[in-house]
């Protein structure tokens, strides 16, 4: 029996000033990455509430990635430093609850790093695809 290939759904939160621009640059340079990646624009990575991450998983996302300016380069001075702490805590907790740690990621992508954005997304999609469907976090009601 042939299994249908599972295409993972990835939600990417990108900060407006660096990573979203990096994603645009990947587009300008026609750098391919899977269409499973859907970007949500936020002003700063520090706008990403852990609730958004959980909500995405709950509604069927297979992976969530947060992209922000490199530490020290935050448009809002210190926003990404808070993101770094919050997400370190959240990811560690999800792992503690037995959720595969490969499903969450944080990456610093500058507006000049179109190639890094595409490479990151390719790698992330591949990693998440290997894990298969996100069963542990999904809210069955929403199927």
């Amino acid at each position, binding site marked *: 029996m042939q299994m249908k290939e599972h295409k993972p*759904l990835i*939600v990417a939160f990108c900060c*407006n000033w660096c990573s*979203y*621009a990096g*994603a*645009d*640059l*990947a*587009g*300008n340079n*026609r*750098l*391919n*990455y899977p*269409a499973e990646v*859907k*970007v*949500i*624009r*936020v*002003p*700063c990575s*520090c*706008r*990403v*509430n*852990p*609730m*958004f991450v959980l*909500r*995405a998983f709950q*509604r*069927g*996302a297979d992976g969530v990635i947060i992209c922000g300016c490199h530490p020290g380069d935050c*448009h*809002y*001075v*210190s*926003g990404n430093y*808070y993101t770094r702490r*919050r997400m370190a805590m959240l990811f560690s907790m999800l792992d503690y609850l037995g959720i595969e740690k490969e499903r969450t990621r944080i990456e610093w992508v500058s507006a000049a790093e179109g190639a890094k954005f*595409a490479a990151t997304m390719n790698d992330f999609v591949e990693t998440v695809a290997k894990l298969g469907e996100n069963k542990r976090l999904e809210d069955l009601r*929403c199927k």
Partner: protein
Amino acid sequence: MQRIGVFVCWCGSNIAGTVDVKAVAEALKNEPGVVFSTNYQYMCSQAGQDMIKAAIAGHKLGGIVVCSCSPRMHEATFRKTASQAGINPYMVEIANIREQCSWVHKDMATGTEKAIILGKAAVAKVNLNTPLTPGESPVTKRALVIGGGIAGIQTALDIADAGFPVDIVETKPTIGGKMAQLDKTFPTLDCAACILTPKMVEVAQHENIRIFSYSEVSEIKGFVGNFDVTIKRKARYVKEDICTGCGACVEKCPMKKIPNEFNLGMDNRSAVYIPFAQAVPKVATIDPNACNMLKNGRCGICAKVCTAGAIDYTQKDEYIEEKYGAIVAATGFNPISMDKFDEFAYSQSKDVITSLEFERLTNAAGPTAGKLLRPSDGKHPHTIVFVQCVGSRCSACTEKGKEYCSKICCMYTAKHAMLTRDKYPDTEVYVFYIDVRTPGKNFDEFYRRAVEEYGVNYIKGMVGKVTPEGSKLKVQASDLIANKQLHIDADLVVLAAAIEPDKSARPLATMLTASMDTNDFFTEAHPKLRPVESPTAGVFLSGTCQGPKDIPETVSQAGAAASKVIGLLAKDKLTGNPCIAKSDEWMCNGCSSCGKVCAYGAITYEEKEFRLPDRTTKIRRVASVNPAVCQGCGACTVTCPSGAMDLNGFTTTQIMAEVDAICK
């Protein structure tokens, strides 16, 4: 539910090549709230925009979604279009189906599928959009410059010349700062006083500038455009408006043994004093710690000799309150203490001096009237050793000195060495250096001249120990190129002490809610693109309070800060970004976490009385956001556990609606 129109752009073949735009428009028709959906070749063209306007009018649209290129390209365009059609510009959302879809995916089916999802997310978001209006606040057209050195002077002059009133607050009795203490300036060797004092006079005479000398800022409230500042004018016991600066009191004052700060304690002044001849304002000041009359009521000579009647022993500290639209920090620097570097024997010998002391020793108005004489015995030194990087470039783990390069030492040491050889060719001059750093116009040429034309001995290596012995200073050093240890009997050792921000900077930063780095330098809003602005709106940075710099750099930064201030004061009203945080007072519990993560100090707390449904009242502490200061990052929204803090334009429900739409 909104009435939403969807506009899918082809962008020629840029989008339409990989995305079936018609299918996208068709699919989005069925989304909740969508009453109109269409596609067009170039939505950003005039024709495209007209089409949007017509649809807004024709279908009574309340919000629109444009599926097109990145919002970073045309969000502003379509907001304007919406506004021209009579709906709020913030009722527009863009689905980025070009940079993040058609350009990165190859086949039509995939591209179309993703474009539809992105469109759905935008529709879901716009359903929750609310009209936003940028806040406005008035601007007080007056600037405050804190610090009256060359940085503060230049900033004040530039602002004043543009027609805005400026106040300078300076803690010392006179403006002029460190530059007034310098002898010559590199790399042109013009005398510091000759170029600085005319500027000081210009400041004094400028109709738009007020100088509060011998004064400190004691309180700052408010925000960009509307600062309320309290300035403490310390009692100088001399009526500033009456004193003519004739100096009769200085001459007759019997207390003559007070270490003279201006000459770094290398000579004495009287209890009533004028720091230096060209002081601005040129008025006397009585040192309350030295004056007999003030200490025990005995003396009073200065009052007797003052024909103008300017002496007033009863003067008290005075507080004045003033409003400002912008504040410039120009608090400057000081050389660090040499206490932790006594291997160089600074505390053991008067003939081991810092470079700033050397400036005074060679200055015509200094303690030796410009003759280079040893502080210990007044003799001419024949061998001088300059030591670079004393306390600069130290590892933090040594707990001595500073990690950064102080930037100015290489050049002023070259200057000192050159001037010494020029005036006293019989003097042997050694400069011990780790690296010679001369990035600046005509800087390296200057240093090379010191070596090649003036015969200064530059030795790569460091001094390890200075031992006073008899009248000599035994200098033990390494010459790394020759791989030798050198022993030099010197007459004078000059230490290029690291510089650090003035001690007043830290409390000032606290008052301004401006951020500082670990070295107490003010942090700029962006290290490359906003170097003269503090992250705190309305606060600007001038000179060495932001980082070590030389005079040319200080002056350019001072001018840059002034132009930023002028740009701000030229506005009658400040229009903010409406996408800022807002606190729901009914939900806020006053825990004050949000204020801690705000980089801009935009959040304040107040006790507020609430009427409860049962008609009782309750006083609670709640947060409020100052719309003029908030930059809209959203850090506070995540810190707030109750969700009382939300961000306009990126509300929690909006983002969650996008998540839901994508994950559906």
